């Protein structure tokens, strides 16, 4: 496997991990923009725009875009997060050029008014769908509570109100501020003809005008507290917690991820033995999320309402015990083995390689192979884990409880 890079004159980065024995080519545009780059009155515009990208261009109708993607037998989709929007497709190698041409074309969407109003209805249905699904808006609420007025507290989907208020003009304005080629990378993995790829992208994207697309990446001031969202029709109670964690460029992130595996992986962790093996909860897990200049550790637990208060107390006891009964050599060894195996398994899929290459660019990382990443995890020591546990105490957190009970409280 070989990593090759090229930068077009307008700043668009091309990153390719070439594996001639792969069965497929997976590729995607990674745009460094998301909910944190929106103004509050434009809540949901990044995600709405992601939908509109598939609704046609100067050269193609929405129907043509969909039909062409299917005619290539592509596995394609898009996703929007707090700080990225990704448009991706996996195809057989014969379709490399057509898929690149199509993805490049749709990245300059027409944003036609009729399509805009129809798609607005689809987005509103998407918001309603998530309202019906656990944890019923709990994630959006805890991000807003935890980050306060920091832009990372903004919801990816937006609300029915903010989405209803959007217009094609506002979306155009957002597009013109964010979709600069210098703010975009094209990531590709698999059986790729790199020279042809560069030629195709130069031909299709070379005329995209660059401009400065900066981001408000000021430091967050995470808040703590306890919030109840009363939802009487829910059967289970959902507990979410956020605590401060290492940011995307913080070298502590590897130790922090091992710590989260030891503490709260959905199998074999301290959380597992406390909550899942015993049936005290239906699900319980802890995971890290890293952003540009901010990071968090999320705890999630779902259980019967009558067990919720005791489970909140148990979470607090386990968190406190991380400092008094720190991770052991055995725990560290098992976590490393689990992480290494996961890296090997996921690196077999061309699509996951493309995501890895693109995500590393999004975070501003120097590219690392799966083996190099695995080696970094292997080198983490108990002391480093203990330092991370002390530096980012899970006991200082924001908690949101969602469900039939509205009388729950922080752990005593």
């Amino acid at each position, binding site marked *: 496997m070989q990593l090759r890079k090229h930068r077009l004159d307008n700043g668009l980065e091309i990153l390719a991990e070439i594996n001639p024995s*792969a*069965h*497929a080519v997976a590729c995607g545009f990674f745009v460094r923009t998301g909910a944190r780059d929106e103004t509050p009155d434009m809540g949901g515009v990044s995600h709405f725009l992601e939908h509109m990208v598939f609704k046609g261009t100067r050269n193609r109708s929405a*129907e043509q*875009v*969909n*039909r062409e*993607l*299917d*005619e*290539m*037998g*592509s*596995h394609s989709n898009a996703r929007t997060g707090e700080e990225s929007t990704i448009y991706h497709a*996996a*195809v*057989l*190698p014969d379709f490399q050029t057509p898929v690149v041409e199509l993805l490049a074309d749709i990245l300059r969407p027409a944003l036609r008014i009729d399509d805009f109003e*129809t*798609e*607005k*209805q*689809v*987005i*509103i*249905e998407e918001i309603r*769908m998530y*309202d*019906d699904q*656990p944890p019923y808006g709990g994630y959006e609420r805890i991000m807003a509570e935890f980050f306060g007025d920091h832009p990372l507290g903004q919801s990816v989907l937006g609300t029915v109100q903010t989405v209803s208020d959007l217009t094609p003009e506002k979306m155009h304005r957002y597009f013109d501020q964010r979709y600069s080629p210098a703010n975009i990378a094209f990531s590709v993995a698999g059986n790729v003809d790199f020279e042809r790829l560069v030629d195709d992208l130069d031909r299709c994207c070379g005329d995209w005008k660059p401009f400065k697309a900066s981001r408000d990446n000021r430091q967050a001031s995470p808040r703590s507290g306890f919030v109840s969202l009363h939802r009487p*029709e*829910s*059967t*289970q109670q959902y507990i979410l917690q956020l605590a401060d964690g290492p940011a995307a460029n913080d070298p502590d992130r590897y130790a922090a991820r091992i710590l989260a595996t030891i503490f709260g992986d959905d*199998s*074999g962790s301290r959380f*597992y*033995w406390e909550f*899942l*093996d*015993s*049936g*005290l*909860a*239906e*699900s319980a897990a802890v995971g890290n999320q890293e952003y540009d200049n901010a990071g968090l550790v999320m705890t999630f637990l*779902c259980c*019967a309402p009558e067990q919720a208060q005791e489970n909140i107390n148990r979470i607090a006891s386990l968190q406190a015990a991380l400092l008094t009964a720190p991770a052991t050599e*055995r725990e560290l*060894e*098992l976590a490393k*083995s*689990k992480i290494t*195996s*996961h890296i*090997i*398994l996921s690196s*077999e*899929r*061309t699509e996951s390689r493309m995501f890895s290459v693109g995500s590393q660019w999004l975070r501003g990382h120097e590219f690392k192979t799966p083996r190099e990443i695995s080696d970094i995890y292997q080198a983490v020591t108990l002391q480093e884990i203990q330092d991370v546990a002390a530096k980012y105490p899970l006991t200082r957190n924001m908690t949101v409880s969602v469900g039939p009970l509205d009388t729950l409280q922080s752990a005593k």
Partner: protein
Amino acid sequence: MIKAPQQIHIHKLQNGMTVLGEVMPWLESAAFSFSVPAGCQYDPSERLGLASFVCEMVQRGAGSLDSREFIERLESLGVDYGSSTSVFHTHFNGAMPAERIYEALAVYRDVIRNPWLPGDQIEDARQVGIQEIRSLDDDLSQRVLLQLRLRQYGQPSGRWSHGTFEGVNAVDSNDIGTFFERHYQPDGLILTIAGNIDWPILVKSVETMFGDWTGKATNPIVETAPIRGSLHIPFESQQVHIGIACPTRTYNDPDYFLARAATGVLSDGMSSRLFSELREKRGLCYSVFASLHSVLTQACVVAYVGTGTDRAQQSLDALVEQLVKLREGVSESELGRFKIQIRSSLVMQQESSRSRAGSIAGDWMHLGRVRTLNELTDVINGLTVECVNKFLDENPYEKFNLVTLGPEPLEMNHAASQTST
């Protein structure tokens, strides 16, 4: 680009257990899947959830490992493991770095043959089962789809494995022991392994682990007829969750791929009819799909749409209209897109030992043999518009079962869609 010749192997043990393998030397991983003929179809009607309960219990200590050592062992081997219970089988599966496959199989030999079934863990296992049932309650679309399947197939094929509160609460150590003795037997057990494996060594190793095991399953099953007609589950939700189902061909039916192509035209890809007509053109919904579901002797097309209450009736009508309209036939370009999508998926399956292990096991259960990727590609390439359309004309989608969940019930309006009673 299918790597040829595909190396698929079959080995039958004297005791009735079958081992299926696919050698994929380009991978670093291997994956296994044990399908034990201990599905929830064998749950007694007053113990619904028993098969799933036993699946949980056998992993709470086996052979020389207690429940904590069992999980630690899997983790130290780097096994990404899981288990589940379906109507016909209980499955134990895992994927890992290939060189660890023998040690992983040895762990599961004990799970399947020598579990402790420790009495002091029964209450914890019961709580796990109860939590699963409770969580299902909060999954609104899943509730609709499970009810739909139950009504379409009847008992036991339409069952879901979680069971009921009454059933799970009633289970005792005697039930667990009896179920285990009766159904965890080699006869009918399928072990599938795919990935970077050495087949002769693997067979030898499996023979050593399972060759001396004997026994036949005894399988009393009570069947009940499907229930036709509509069901509405009143619930104050944001969306109305709508599911409809109608009968179609099973996976082992010679016409299966004609039916599958029809469902593909309806729902595979972004240019499919449902996505295009309901979502893209009319903006009625975010989630809409149809899929073909097959158990051994029954199959159905299941279609789902979730939408706001104000447009729910309109969405149901549009969904039924598309299903009924399929009788008028599919076009050359629609079938062409279906074919390339399937071919592309088949090629990409070769990137994953886990998905190949799953496919092989599925083929064996339904067909008693394994289709190669080339054979499947030939079948797909051989489909013609004439054949698909003749099939659709002779087998139109009709006699729908309807299940809805939301504030208000809906009506089946389309004349051709009258539910049978």
